[in-house]
Structures are given as structure tokens and as C-alpha cells.
């Protein structure tokens, strides 16, 4: 048996170590944000947001094509993924008590862990190969497929937070079950579901791998869904690997814009969700 003092000292030491672990875990976030601000902020000017990429050698140029491309592709992803994902979430919350619900929940979690590049290949076989060319549409569908399992789980959680008394009140007033579910329960959870969408969108907006062989990327400004389209993370990737300092400078600026987009979305969502959980 060790002495009491030694045991307590060891305990304090290890407690201190957990403080250290937490500090060390947060350090990369601080360093990354700091570097992005230092290296990226200087290149953010009017041209960056209004001009498209230019061939190397010409001065100027910006990320306008990539920013618009990301907005379009993410918009497409929402059009595909949100109705299906939210629908599955409502199913899990309303009818997910049995074996089927358990199985679907399980598949959603497993699908959530499937690498996004595999989803990218799948979208390629279904949309790019039959159509014969890369397209923004395929990129949007690929991101949409990633949205679905995430949304299913967050929606389920949000719908479950709705107090049962609301449902009972609606049923007692003679509402049919489906109308109770849609117009009372889901509507009450709407704010929560929306924030779930924000979190999910924040995640897919930064996805690069599924776009590599679907949207492909595009040097020029394009809003054609049938053709290749630029996207913010894709352009950051290409510019970061490129050999020119000018490209690296713009890659940092693009990364800064991307992370702002993602962090603002997820921080807003997180605060709302946290507030809701505490109320429930």
C-alpha cells in the first residue's frame, strides 16, 4: 500500500495531465485558425470575390467561380438530401420503435462512417459514367447522399424532444395521426430540424473527395449543372498542390473563406441545439 501523500500527489499529477491533454487538443484549432487569418486575410480583396480563376502568369483572379460553384452544388445536395434525410428522421422518431427502426438506425450510423470517397465513386458509376461527362449535378447528388444519414439521426433526435403532451392534445382534439405528426410534432421541431440541416450542410460544404470525379472542378465561371463546376474545397486543393506562390496565397485565402462558412454555420447550429436541449 502506497502512502496517502504519494497517492494524492499522483492523482494531482494525472489530473494536471488531463488539463494538458485538453489544452493540447485545442491547440491545433487555434494554430489552424491563426495561420488561416495570418496567411489568408491579406489576400481577401474585392477581386477575390468577384473574379474567377485566371491562368498562371496573368495577375489578379479570384475564387468567384469556386464560391458560386460551392453554393450551387451544396444547394443541389440539399434539394436531394434534405427531404429524404428529414423523412427518414421522422420515420425513426415516429415509427422507429420496432426492429425495422433499430435496423434503419444502425444502417444510418454505419453509412455515416462510409468514407466520402466511396460515395464519390458510387455517384460516378450512376451519374457520370452513363451521362458520359462530369457534372455539377453528380457532385450535388454525391453530397446529398452524404447528407441523408446525418440528417436522419439529427432529425430523429429533434423530433423526439417534442413533449408528448402536445401530441396527446392534438389527438384529443380529433386530429388524425398523420396530421398530428406533420402539423404539430414536426412543426414544433422545425427549428431544431433546420439547425440539424445547418450542421450537416457545414459538413458537406467542406467535402472535397466526393467532388473529385463528379463535379471535377472548373477554371472558368460556370453555372451549368450538366457540366463540370468549380467548388471552394476543390480549388483550395488544386491551388495548394500547385507549384506557384501566387496559387498558395490564394489557397490560404480560399481556405479562410471556407472555414468561415463552415464555422459560422456549425457554431450557430450548435448554440441553438444546446439551448433547445436544455429547455427540453
Amino acid at each position: 500500500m502506497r502512502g496517502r501523500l504519494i497517492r494524492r500527489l499522483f492523482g494531482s499529477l494525472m489530473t494536471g495531465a488531463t488539463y494538458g491533454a485538453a489544452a493540447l487538443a485545442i491547440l491545433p484549432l487555434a494554430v489552424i485558425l491563426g495561420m488561416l487569418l495570418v496567411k489568408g486575410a491579406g489576400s481577401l480583396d474585392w477581386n477575390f470575390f468577384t473574379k474567377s480563376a485566371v491562368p498562371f502568369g496573368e495577375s489578379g483572379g479570384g475564387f468567384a467561380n469556386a464560391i458560386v460553384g460551392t453554393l450551387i452544388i451544396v444547394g443541389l445536395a440539399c434539394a436531394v438530401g434534405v427531404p429524404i434525410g428529414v423523412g427518414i428522421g421522422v420515420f425513426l422518431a415516429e415509427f422507429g420503435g420496432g426492429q425495422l427502426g433499430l435496423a434503419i438506425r444502425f444502417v444510418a450510423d454505419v453509412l455515416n462512417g462510409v468514407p466520402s470517397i466511396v460515395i464519390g465513386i458510387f455517384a460516378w458509376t450512376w451519374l457520370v459514367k452513363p451521362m458520359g461527362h462530369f457534372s455539377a449535378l453528380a457532385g450535388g447528388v454525391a453530397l446529398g447522399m452524404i447528407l441523408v444519414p446525418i440528417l436522419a439521426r439529427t432529425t430523429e433526435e429533434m423530433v423526439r424532444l417534442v413533449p408528448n403532451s402536445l401530441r396527446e392534445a392534438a389527438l384529443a382534439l380529433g386530429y388524425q395521426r398523420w396530421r398530428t405528426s406533420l402539423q404539430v410534432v414536426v412543426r414544433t421541431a422545425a427549428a431544431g430540424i433546420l439547425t440539424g440541416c445547418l450542421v450537416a450542410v457545414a459538413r458537406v460544404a467542406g467535402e472535397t473527395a466526393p467532388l473529385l470525379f463528379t463535379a471535377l472542378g472548373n477554371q472558368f465561371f460556370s453555372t451549368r449543372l450538366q457540366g463540370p463546376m468549380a467548388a471552394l474545397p476543390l480549388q483550395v486543393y488544386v491551388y495548394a498542390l500547385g507549384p506557384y506562390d501566387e496559387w498558395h496565397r490564394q489557397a490560404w485565402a480560399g481556405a479562410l473563406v471556407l472555414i468561415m462558412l463552415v464555422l459560422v454555420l456549425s457554431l450557430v447550429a450548435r448554440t441553438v441545439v444546446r439551448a433547445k436541449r436544455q429547455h427540453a
Partner: protein
Amino acid sequence: MTDVPATALEPLAPKPTAEERWRALRTVSRGDLIYRSVLTVLALLLPLLVVLIAVELVSNAMPAVHKFGFGFLAHSTWDPVRGQFGALPLIFGTLYSSLVALVIAVPLALGCAIFLTEFAPRWLRTPVATLIELLAAVPSVIYGLWGIFVLIPLLRDHFWPVARHVLGELPIFSGVFYGPSVLAAGVILAVMVLPYITAVSREVLLAVPPSQREAGLALGATRWETVTTVILPYGRAGIIGAVILGLGRALGETMAVTMVIGNRHEVSASLLQPGYTIAAAIANEFSEAVSDMHLAALFMVGAVLFLITIIVNTLARVLVWRVARGSAVGSTAI
């Protein structure tokens, strides 16, 4: 006055027969039936998607399966020009870089989870947890960018010149260090999986009943001893699940790894040498595949990756669900 027209009242209050009431009940439930069917069909899309992905990967990989068979997994030549494909370096690199990531991330993540549930002052818990979760929100390509321009120079110019005096003799640190390497990939992956492992282990530790904790303290254990002898053993299954979940993330991570691992088809035990992973190979070669066989080979490694991540995630979910049954554990880390 006595002969009130009966017809004026009758339509207002018809006496429904049993059959009519039954019909009325059935028409009410038709909406419910449609609602439920639509949602069920949507839900069934998920398993369908998994099956479709598997079918597409396997059927597109068939040419490579027929030509190379299982030897595909054991050979290490990858020569698209001569049509020779062996996936050993890719599989090895995928597992090796993920293992390095876990060795770095697991102690840190456990420390964070213990800190957040046991030791941190209450006011500090939410902000620290949020900051760690935000690590998971940083896009992978930004980690890659940071890896190329910050981490690799840091490792090459500051870490290794000092560390070589201590570690230089070990076989896993042999050879010349140029920068892009399994080590760099492992460090980046560690940062990327840390928030997942932390978030899930934290929820597992939170699920440990307070009575267990109190019993430990009442027996005279210090708070740290309570953690190691009571709380961690109680949540062991869930914590192992959390680690495996982190492994699943690391195995499939693409962009950041592609940017720092060096992308060379080679099996080397040295952490300082470049390597390659399945996901990175697909990212680099897929849209520029030189032949149908090349494409089939990429599909085959894709199928292998898919299979591995499905197994790993299934295992993780089973372990985590045992502790926190059916709840969306880890969903906060998304």
C-alpha cells in the same frame, strides 16, 4: 306543430350503422397509412443505398478480380502502364497511418474525455467540449493545406533534428526524412479523429451511474483512482467502441492524407518514408485511369475499403450501443 318534418332533422343526426362507423374509421386511417408507407419507403432507401454501393463496387471490380484473384491483395507492384496491380502497399499504408493516428490520438482523447467529465470546472466544460468538437468541423482539405505548409516543415526542420538523437536508432524511424511521410499523415489523422473519439468516450463516461463514482470515493480512492479503477472499467466497451469509430474515420480519410503522405506505392516500416493509402490512390488516379484494368483495380481497392469500414463501424456501433442503447452517440461530433 306536432308534425315537425322529420326529414329536416334526420340528415343532421343520422344514426350510423355499425358498418358505416367501421367505414368512417377506415377512411380516417387511410391518411395515416399513406403517411406511414411513404416514410417507410424513404427509410428503406438507406439499406438499399448500402446494397447498391456494394453491388456497383464489386461489379466494376470484376475484371480485376478475374485477372488477379486474391493475389491482388498480396502483391506490391502497381504499374498502370504494364497493367500489373497489387494492392499490398495501399492496404498496408491505410492500416499503418491509421494505427499511428490512434497511438497519438487515443491517450489524448481519453485525457480530454476524462477532463471534461471528471475534473474540469463546470463553467469550462461546455466551451472546451465545443472547441474540441469544432476540430471535427474543419474541412479535410484545410488540414491538408496546413499539413503541407506548416506541419511538414515543422516536423522536418524542428522535430526531427532534435528527435533523431533519441529515436534515430529505432527501425520505424530509419532512413532520410524529406517531409511527406506516414508520420505526417499519422499526425494529421490524429488531430482529425481526436474530436470523434473524445465526443463518444465523453458520452460513454457520462453514462456511468453516479453511484459507481460515489462508491469508489467512499472506499477511500482518490478521484484519479476512481477514474482508473471504477469509471474506465465500467465504460470499457463503449470506449473501445469510440476508438474503433475513430479508426473507421482514419481509414477512410482522403484529402488531408493525399496531401501529406507522399503517395508512393511502397511498403516500408519506417514512419519517415512516404506511403500511400487506398483512399488517396482513388483520389489521385481515378479520374486519370489509363486503362479499364486500372479502373477495375481502383474499384477493387474501393470495395476493400468499403468492406473494412463497414466491419469497423458495425463493431464500433455494437460496442457503443451496449452502453448508450440506440442513442445517436457521437452525432454531436458531426
